[in-house]
């Protein structure tokens, strides 16, 4: 069936560097995408979302890029900080169908 996945299960970056977390999706009909951050013992925390009519959206220190041609989604975190260490999930949706989560990428920030 359709699925959302991540290229890298773990990512280690130096503090202050930029991080890029990638996500591939297989359903070309998906029209809404979300990135979540999950810290240990906490629930997924909304970071940023993007609709399929956009290819880029920026937030505070974060940027989401959507490439519909190759069905690829990425989350860029600028000047990565120790507090950014967490598991990051991409999720995709079509209309009012359920949100489908990817497997998650663990980001470790090295001080």
């Amino acid at each position, binding site marked *: 069936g359709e699925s959302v996945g991540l290229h890298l299960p773990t990512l280690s970056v130096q503090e202050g560097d930029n991080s890029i977390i990638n996500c591939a999706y297989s359903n070309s009909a998906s*029209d809404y995408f979300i990135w979540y951050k999950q810290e240990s013992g*906490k*629930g997924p925390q*909304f970071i940023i979302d993007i609709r399929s009519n956009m290819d880029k959206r920026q937030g505070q220190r974060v940027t989401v890029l959507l490439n519909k041609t190759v069905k690829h989604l990425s989350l860029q975190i600028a000047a990565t900080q120790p507090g950014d260490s967490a598991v990051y999930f991409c999720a995709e949706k079509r209309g009012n169908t359920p949100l489908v989560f990817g497997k998650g990428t663990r980001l470790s920030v090295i001080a």
Partner: protein
Amino acid sequence: DTAVSQTPKYLVTQMGNDKSIKCEQNLGHDTMYWYKQDSKKFLKIMFSYNNKELIINETVPNRFSPKSPDKAHLNLHINSLELGDSAVYFCASSRGQINQPQHFGDGTRLSIL
């Protein structure tokens, strides 16, 4: 104030027991959800309610019965608990079902002995 709150945070019980998890949101959202996260961190939707009506039931065993007394609450009752029910259960809510982010509670860790 916590936007989506679940109780209890931890639940340890024996196989065969019946237990409930409660969820409340103070965001004014009209759609609420239950998710299950397994030991590999995989998150999967179980149920979704919109204005107290069930709209999504993702092939969850009948032992799981959600109840929504009002738009701000969605409880989950589980009968005859099994070892495989051990997981973290997350409640979430959103304003509508389309193009709206879901906001999650901090989860209930259920451990079956």
